């Protein structure tokens, strides 16, 4: 039997191997501090933080209030200039709906207030992962998501920063998607 703690550790190890910055597992208070600190660093040049609306994990942590208190500029999906703003935002923050230790990836679901592009257009992505949602294997996660309810219209799995092997088969980062991915694990 693997304990959830061991699975979480393996997950953090896999994500780090995938060239993500990993944080945690943290208490909600510490996780919030990390999120704010990362958001500020990615927007140090005055760019905005793209934040979904109605994300249960982010709302529970109080991410919006903390970011506003920290004085960063927020971009929300209900803003009229969401898309043009997203193209120049410094970071997108999301939570995940599942994660996998063995393969090292997180799953994001689309939804109302949870646009697909939040984790795609900005050069950095901060993803909050609940430790209780980390599965040991990909097969277990697939099965878990299927039985958790209707699949979202877009279920996106992310391993780390965008990469390619197309140039003489050596890995090169930052092709289309985010160049930086921060993983913040929330102990729950």
């Amino acid at each position, binding site marked *: 039997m693997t304990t959830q703690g061991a699975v979480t550790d393996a997950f953090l190890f*896999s994500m780090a191997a*995938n060239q993500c910055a990993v944080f945690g597992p943290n208490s909600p208070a510490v996780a919030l501090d990390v999120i704010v600190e990362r958001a500020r660093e990615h927007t140090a040049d005055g760019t905005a933080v793209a934040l979904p609306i109605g994300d249960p994990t982010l709302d529970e942590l109080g991410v919006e209030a903390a970011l506003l208190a920290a004085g960063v500029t927020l971009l929300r*999906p209900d803003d009229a200039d*969401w898309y043009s703003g997203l*193209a120049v935002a410094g970071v997108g923050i999301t939570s995940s709906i599942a994660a*996998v230790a*063995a*393969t*090292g*990836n997180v799953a994001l679901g*689309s*939804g*109302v*207030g949870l*646009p*697909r*592009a939040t984790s*795609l257009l900005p050069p950095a992505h901060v993803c909050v992962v609940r430790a209780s949602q980390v599965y040991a*294997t*990909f*097969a*277990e*996660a*697939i*099965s878990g998501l*299927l039985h958790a309810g209707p*699949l*979202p*219209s*877009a*279920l*996106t*799995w*992310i*391993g*780390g*920063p*965008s*990469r*390619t*092997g*197309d*140039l*003489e*088969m*050596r890995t*090169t*980062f*930052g*092709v*289309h*998607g*985010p160049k930086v991915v921060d993983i913040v694990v929330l102990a729950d």
Partner: protein
Amino acid sequence: MSGKGLVTPGPTMKARSKVAVEDPQLQAALSNLDLRLFTAGVVQAEHPEWKDRVAEIRRETLADLDGWIDKLEAKLLSLGVVVHRAATPEEARAYILGLAQREGVRRVVKSKSMATEEIDLGSALEAVGIESIETDLGEYIVQLADERPSHMITPAIHKTLGQIADVLSKEAGTELPVVREPLTAWARDKLREKFVAADMGITGANFVAADTGTIVVVTNEGNGRFCTSLPRIHVAVVPVEKVVPRFEDLGVLLPTLVMSATGAKMSNYLSMVTGPRREGEIDGPEQLHVVLLDHNRRVLLGTPYEDMLGCIRCGACLNVCPVYRTVGGHAYDSSYSGPMGKILTPLVTGGEEGRDLPFASTLCGACTEACPAEIPLADLLVRLRADLRTPGPVVVPGAQKPAPPPALPVGPVGHSDEHPRKPGEGFATAVTRITVPTRRAPWSQRRMGFDAWSRLWAHPSAYRASLRVGRLGAKALRPRAGWVQRAPLLRAWTDTRDVLVPSGPTFRERWAARERGEERW
């Protein structure tokens, strides 16, 4: 077929191979494949149970492919997806072009897909004035170079970094450094403009789950995410064998695919698309179209070539193939190269193209060993060599003349349920299942030669006589025996190798001499 599609007019694989072997740049680029050589064995080493499970799922699917297609279609329709069944590349192209024109599409972004290569979609779009941009970096490079991909996972594997920099510099109008990061950064910015302005995203699908209607697109770069997220229309071109019965099957299929392809535990991105954007969502495609492509695939069901439809396009057979590693993908002159390409090309083109490809193999069996879907690739190559003696399609459709496909209404939210479909109906080439080969091969020179030879050598006395004749011939033509540089009738051998000309007694003569006590071993 025209353009850079499935097959371009050109010389034989033999002629193309000669060019490839003598191209120093290509040889330098192909040496990078060494990095990937051992990926094929990773699945077997780390998860030996996956291979059997994958093969089991694929066989289960193929055993009732039409049934799974119907289930998939019903599910897709319920999600508001528009489904079009295309029997031929022409039908698939016509549907997509019609849709694009009706919707006023001016720019298309494509995510790397073997199926759209097979139907030559990019050229067809360009021909009607629609800009079509390949967004996988490697595929973008070959598009700019006006070439075709040479590897199904790394399309520009045939190019050195210097050649890639040249191609990108030409497009940039400025000289880019021969360094990976700045080249990648330039392409990122360039393609970002294209994504934002595209009206239509076109992808293939690595798998489509019948029970949930989920389309899976695997990438490392994120271009698949762009193509399925930003444009208002998403079209997925899905060869029929991509269907898998259950979403849960992806739990083993995807890790096996990725590990066999690159050796990595998982690809960087997986896009799982279940229907178009839903009410209240602000991104994702408003319209999602799935084009189910048959193109001579279903006719293979129930024949020994059915196994080939189990292929999951991982590229492992290319990476381990001595021929592929020597000549690269372009020598095959097909969208599909390597061992799987040698089999699939003549099959899906109905025997019109690639008939010489199955002979370009040493039959070493490395492909069979590497295949995570347990397809007996080397055996199929041998079988094809025999079946291709008969002109025409490798597998001939049954005599039963199929009914013409019903005219399918096309609308923005799925075609109506007023057209319930019987299993398999809707593909113009619906056929009865047959077993190959049942047709008599014509008497070619080769067949006559082997026939005569086998008749002769089925008789020991004739065999012995032919050995004696061979000895006499060798003696007459080559007074000196042993290793020689040239010998009559053996030029194809001696152009590259010395040949051993025997002169002494045969083994059986020596055995007889020993039996008589004339020789001691």
